[in-house]
């Protein structure tokens, strides 16, 4: 198949539309108001995301989506990052929606995806556990009982959990992995909600003998493994896309600042040491954008190893470099960027969170080495 090196006009149109909407409805002042909310009042915005076609952008037309591929989401997610959008788009649409296109019980998918695309529900993947860093280790136990399951365990730092209508829960059942679809208000499910440092919601989920019925089964065994793999890759890719948007926004703010701000009789942009470091920030943005774009395109490749390699390469690079670019942005802005009133520090927060979610740079460098060189 033929691949392009940069987004074409159709994709740029998505970017422009997103900018138009977000600059109106999600400027930094409005965002601060949303941030004061409980995390659940913005369903009106969520429904507008649906109206804008964002929720179904890369989901199949059969379910009411636009049938796009990952490159369309690549454009949108960058904007959601750049505007520091708090809604659980990543956790709901990308991490849960994308795997449901191809994996899981068909009845469940056919029911959930149209609801998701229409903006009527939000989803969250309950995967991480407190014990280990490695997401493959699952200790939450699903014991078969009365045709359904009894759940005991603890899921930690679950992105989007507090507002989710459904949770995709990974658990161990006998020697296999299993993915169940449960509701936060199922008996025996307790969520401790909080915000992350970047303002997005997350929570601890405790299962103390919760009981769920037989219809909650989503996938089991190899099917569950694959679903979780797809979800993790989607999560990594989504973090990359958001963070590339974040770092570009941080760079743009910094360029504007150093041109305007004067010190010792000249604009900051006149100091060569600063100029060279801003050149380095720009290069980091270009490299990150190139890797993210390649990862987005890799979603259309038949070769799953190349897809893994492309996403791993991007997550490995962008995690760190987005944070470093944002640290530089803070440094060049000076003390103003240490205040919570000013957007630049929030770019750094978002970059920090995205660097760590779904595996950090070191982990994905290992994934890359394994996929490409066969190194253990």
């Amino acid at each position, binding site marked *: 198949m033929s691949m392009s090196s940069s987004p074409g006009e159709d994709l740029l149109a998505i970017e422009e539309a997103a900018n138009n909407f977000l600059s109106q409805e999600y400027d930094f002042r409005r965002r601060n108001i949303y941030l004061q909310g409980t995390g659940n009042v913005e369903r009106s915005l969520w429904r507008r995301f649906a109206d804008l076609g964002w929720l179904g952008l890369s989901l199949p037309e059969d379910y009411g989506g636009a049938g796009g591929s990952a490159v369309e989401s690549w454009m949108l997610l960058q904007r959601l990052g750049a505007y520091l959008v708090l809604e659980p788009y990543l956790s709901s649409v990308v991490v849960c929606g994308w795997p449901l296109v191809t994996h899981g019980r068909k009845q469940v998918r056919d029911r959930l995806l149209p609801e998701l695309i229409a903006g009527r529900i939000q989803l969250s993947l309950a995967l991480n556990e407190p014990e280990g860093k490695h997401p493959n280790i699952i200790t939450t136990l699903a014991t078969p009982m009365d045709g359904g399951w009894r759940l005991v365990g603890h899921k930690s730092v679950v992105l989007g959990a507090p507002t989710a209508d459904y949770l995709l829960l990974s658990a161990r059942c006998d020697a296999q992995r299993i993915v169940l679809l449960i509701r936060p208000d199922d008996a025996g499910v307790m969520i401790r909600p909080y915000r992350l*440092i970047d303002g997005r919601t997350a929570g601890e989920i405790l299962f103390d003998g919760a009981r769920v019925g037989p219809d909650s089964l989503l996938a089991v065994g190899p099917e569950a493994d694959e679903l979780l793999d797809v979800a993790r890759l989607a999560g990594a890719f989504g973090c990359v896309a958001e963070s590339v948007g974040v770092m570009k926004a941080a760079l743009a703010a910094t360029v504007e600042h150093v041109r305007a701000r004067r010190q010792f009789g000249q604009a900051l942009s006149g100091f060569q*040491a600063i100029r060279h470091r801003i050149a380095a920030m720009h290069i980091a943005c270009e490299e990150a954008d190139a890797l993210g774009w390649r990862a987005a395109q890799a979603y259309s490749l038949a070769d799953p190893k190349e897809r893994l390699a492309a996403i791993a390469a991007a997550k490995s690079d962008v995690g760190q470099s987005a944070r470093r670019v944002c640290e530089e942005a803070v*440094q060049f802005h000076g*003390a103003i960027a240490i*205040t919570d009133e000013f957007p630049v520090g*929030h770019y*750094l927060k978002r970059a920090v969170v995205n660097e760590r979610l779904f595996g*950090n740079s070191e*982990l994905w460098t290992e994934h890359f080495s394994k996929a490409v060189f066969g190194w253990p």
Partner: protein
Amino acid sequence: MSDVPVADELGGFRAEVQRFLVSALPPELAARTKAGHTLSRDELMFWHRTLHGRGWVAPGWPTEHGGAGWSILQRHIYDEEAARAGAPSIIPMALTIVGPLLIAHGTDAQRTKYLPRILDGSEIWCQAWSEPEAGSDLASLRCHAERIGDEYVVNGTKIWTTFAQWADRCMLLARTATGDRQQFGITILLIDMKDPGVSIRPLPSLDGMHVLNQVYFDNVRVLVSDRVGPEDEGWGLLKSTVGHERILNADVGRARALLDRLIRTVQANPGAQPGLRSRVARAAIRLRSLEVLVMRALDSPDPANASGASIIKLLGTELQQEASWLMSEALGLYGLPYLPDVMQNGWQNEIPIGPDDAATVTPFYLFWRKASISAGTSEIMRNLIAQQVLGR
């Protein structure tokens, strides 16, 4: 981690500091400091008064003014031991800047009026220097004081004023004249924060805490008797006083306390990745070199102007920033939740989310990006170092 070698004769002093800390520092307070909790005003002032009781609250002041009269090396030793023990850092502005300035350049009346209340903690001070358009280039400040009779009338605004919300008094840099040299025409005034026309806008930091403020002066009247030194000559007075602070600002004691905490975090987390461990080791190695550089600066005849002072400020802050990041990374996902109540009060009756002291770590990392910005940005430090090496 081993101690930096220190000449014997100060061993006795170190032991005295240790004994004091053991007896005077409540274990709960030490634990809160070590866990990085945001301390309350009461807690900070409790420790201020405790130090005052021991005669140590103003370590660098001469004894005749109520100070401890310590050498910079003794101050360094105290800082090391205090950080190790988990003693809080008290609110510093009055003790490191205002006091020394008044002692060197104030009038007897000013010293009599202000110093005792600084020492006993009955008045908290802030320093109003930076302005929205004058940060690193401090001399370009514009907040203006006009002499009318035996008063100055101050108009303008100051920013990044630490603890202005608690301050009773303020040391202000105001412009009283403009000329070819920006450094000329700056005057130091002492202001009562309760005076009419003084108002404060809180500036919450990235960690959500309230430390920084913007202060507005709207026709605030200051008696000429509250001017320190001659009119227009404040810049020179200040430069001659700030000296030492750059070395102590590196705060090797705090860096080591941070690193010790980092190492405990990594130990407690057997899943920590090899790359992270290797970076932790690198940070520990850099701390060792910083310790030697600090000792060299302290051993030099004029520590304040020792060529190493800028390097120490730069490395010390970089190292603290690196350690705070590594600690956040070592916590993995548990470095991400934002729990402001827990940052201040610790876990009360709930089961902690993640390791006990996790909540303070990433907010500290965020707030502490400030370290390479305040008290001379890293860029200014590099300019100074380059000047020492290359001239011009």
